């Protein structure tokens, strides 16, 4: 009898584990991450897919997944590195805390420097990730979390992530970039530009 109860308990625990909200954190050939504007030293990367072999100088980029039941309140749930395939990060099977299978949530992917700190809540601006030199984010889209054994892919029919529009046919006909990762001007650059403008204004007044 005791054995039967234990078995039933263990089975229920396993079935309960299947019932957590799941998502396959990954992208496909029409949702690639690619370089938009780059720093001068990384000019060769512009228009290329982000991958582990093509990182900006001195930078390692990673992808963050944010999720939440409101599109304006998204929490960090997973981070993964980039793969060797242009434009794709390494797939990760993710269970979204506090959201059961079948729940419709909002998802967004953010690309940043690994050395920077990802904010706990998604803001969607480069300034929200202090220290990042490159930044990019996908659109925010809805997704119904998986409730079964598997982790439904975020680019599949369980979600509404629109295909990218940037042509990246060099990685296969029809390949599209959906996340542009661009260089962020450093604060010092802003300061220099400001000083330049101020100097020009003063010179003009003196004339």
């Amino acid at each position: 009898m005791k054995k039967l109860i234990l078995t039933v308990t263990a089975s229920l625990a396993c079935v309960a584990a299947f019932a957590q909200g799941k998502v396959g954190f990954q992208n496909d050939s029409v949702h690639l991450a690619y370089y938009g504007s780059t720093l001068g030293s990384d000019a060769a990367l512009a228009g290329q897919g982000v991958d582990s072999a093509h990182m900006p100088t001195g930078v390692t980029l990673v992808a963050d997944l944010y999720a939440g039941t409101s599109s304006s309140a998204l929490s960090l749930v997973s981070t993964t590195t980039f793969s060797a395939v242009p434009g794709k990060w390494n797939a990760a099977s993710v269970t979204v805390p506090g959201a059961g299978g079948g729940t419709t949530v909002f998802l967004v992917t953010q690309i940043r420097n690994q050395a920077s700190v990802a904010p706990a809540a998604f803001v969607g601006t480069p300034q929200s990730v202090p220290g990042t030199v490159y930044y990019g984010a996908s659109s925010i889209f809805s997704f119904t979390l998986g409730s079964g054994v598997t982790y439904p892919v975020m680019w599949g029919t369980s979600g509404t992530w629109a295909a990218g529009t940037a042509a990246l046919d060099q990685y296969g006909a029809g390949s599209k970039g959906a996340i542009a990762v661009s260089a962020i001007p450093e604060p010092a650059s802003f300061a220099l530009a400001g000083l330049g403008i101020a100097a020009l204004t003063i010179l003009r007044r003196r004339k």
Partner: protein
Amino acid sequence: MRTKTLLCAAALAAGVATSMAQSNVYSLNVVGYVNVTTTGGGNFNLIANPLNNTNNSITNLFSVAQDGDQIYRWNKGVQDLDGTIYTYSTFLAKWDGNFTLLPGESVFYLNAGGNRTNTFVGEVIQGPYTNSTLGGTTILGGGNFNMVASSAPIGGSFTNSTVGLPPSDGDQVYTWNVGAQDLDGNIATYSSFLAKWDNTAIAVAPAIGFFYLGAGGNLTWVRNFTVQ
């Protein structure tokens, strides 16, 4: 003359008999067995029938089972475990249902008792064989999962198991981690740009199943296996 004819006929018959005796006659059928151990205590195990038995019904393949053992099939149409669950009762000494588990389909075997080994007996499938699971022979693409197995009793890298299944860009292979009772975090992904899998170190033992995520179009998996 009659004696001469008889002697000739006897000599011819002897010659034919001798030549028949000298030519070796081989049977092309290869039969054998595969043992697979399942973890008990209510744990799910992703296993498969690796050999073609004369009777591939689960009541025959798992004729020795423990009370409360269950078998779950994958319903690719709904992308979840099928609602029909097969349960064994020691009191009734039988399964409460039955289906044919062909080589190439994998199932979740919930072992309700202690760890135990099941022995699959049968013939190694040779020649063209179309993989078939619940719902038909289509390997679903479009980001759908398929719960499959090798139709040949071959271990090692999962690439030994997927021979005959042409991968599309983004196709993935997931194995089952019995200890974690979840899909293993180690995933293999195919890149058509690189024309290779990113991780061929993932091993799949004979009689063990795996999930195949089809990222391209629907496929039919035909394997042409020959015992060397």
